[in-house]
């Protein structure tokens, strides 16, 4: 994984980024019925939706409307986290790149350099890729730290409901792992921990790389079922 061993990838913050989780609140064990005998539908794994960014949103962002800035930071923090994980960054560099990307995008918005709100997601990803490139070349010490004019993007942004969401997802992951056959559980744990080379896991546990994605697919499906299961069942 990127950013784990190289000195030049040393983190500036050295901390886990403040996560804004969008997660369900009910564990696999509960089962309740709602008002008037109807089913109570438990939370889905709501994370990031296709928010319809429009000109009005962009105007509010340019005008530094605090609520819009909060929404922007929450929304893109989750997206960038997914992207940066997939690009192989560990926690500390991930936090730095995410932060620098958000600052640069906001700077461009404030300077009226973003014209098309529909392409905001793609624009953020483009900036992120540029920041990743600079980070990989060891240029992060050159990044400017004059962030005073920007909203708080510190690593300790934690919404009030985050602990409940984290606890719920934690419980679900536990439940999913417990339900798996021994061999599949070992494979999934190895993938989660990400401490060994994938080929090494294949040899040790007698599996194939193709099986990883199938197993992860099943685990994600199980988690979804657990999280969306209603009391009607």
């Amino acid at each position: 994984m990127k950013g784990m061993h190289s000195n030049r990838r040393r983190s500036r913050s050295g901390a886990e980024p403040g996560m804004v989780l969008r997660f369900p609140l009910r564990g696999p064990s509960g089962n309740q019925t709602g008002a008037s005998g109807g089913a109570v539908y438990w939370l889905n794994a709501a994370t990031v939706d296709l928010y319809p960014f429009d000109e009005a949103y962009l105007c509010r962002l340019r005008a530094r409307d605090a609520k819009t800035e909060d929404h922007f930071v929450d929304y893109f923090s989750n997206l960038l986290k997914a992207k940066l994980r997939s690009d192989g960054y560990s926690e500390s560099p991930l936090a730095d790149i995410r932060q620098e990307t958000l600052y640069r995008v906001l700077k461009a918005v404030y300077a009226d350099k973003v014209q098309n709100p529909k392409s905001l997601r793609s624009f953020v990803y483009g900036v992120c890729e540029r920041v990743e490139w600079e980070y990989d070349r060891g240029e992060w010490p050159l990044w400017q730290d004059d962030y005073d004019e920007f909203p708080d993007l510190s690593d300790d942004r934690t919404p009030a409901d985050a602990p409940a969401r984290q606890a719920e997802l934690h419980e679900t992951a536990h439940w999913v792992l417990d339900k798996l056959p021994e061999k599949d559980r070992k494979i999934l744990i190895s993938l989660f921990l990400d401490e060994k080379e994938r080929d090494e896991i294949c040899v040790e546990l007698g599996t194939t790389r193709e099986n990883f994605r199938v197993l992860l697919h099943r685990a994600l499906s199980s988690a979804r079922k657990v999280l969306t299961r209603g009391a009607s069942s």
Partner: protein
Amino acid sequence: MATHFMNHQQALEQYATERYLLREMTAEERHAFEEHYLECAECLEAVTFGTEFLEAGKQVAQEMTRREHSAVRAAASWRERLMPALSGWLRPAPAIAFALVLCSIVSYQGLRIHQLKTEQTMKVARPEIRSMLTGIAHGAGEAKLIEVPRDAVVSLGEEYGRSGDYVSYRAQVMNEAGSIKQTFELPDVPGNVANVALLPGSLGEGKYNLIILGRTADGTEKEVGRGAFILKFSK
């Protein structure tokens, strides 16, 4: 494998979400998938959900691994300490006395565990507050004030318009700033009332909209119901 473009069908067939999460895509594939999921609600949600699930899974895996290691260490440690002592204790009189002491301890522990379980059950029992929202679309635009204890489960009901045009429905809780705070997939059951449950700690005090969206077969979503509420915690 598509190198420059990926549509939804290809993404599904190629396990794109899983391969993306497992970092098993080439740079080109990753780029093509990113271009797709940035415009696809289903894949976008799948990727972000998967990311957070992997994170939670990592924590659980670490705990499980730690527990296994400490269990192995504890077993080894006890064997090392007990074996020399047992050679003396296995004589008849000390063995009987030891068995009696052991029985007492086991009985006491059983009783104590039962007591603790009961106490725990009492602690997590929470009040459930039920509230029906009036749809703004039906002429009443006022937000409903819901004042509840901080530890209460809030069950919200909201009427919405079902139609054959939609293959599925979901509910979203959105705050005043337009951020989606919760999303619920609604199961396909008869009736036109969506019920959702908010567990303690899931939302802070404030004004929220509960929006019901209908999804057509081609993935287009349209609002089919909306209600507003103000959440306030009673002292």
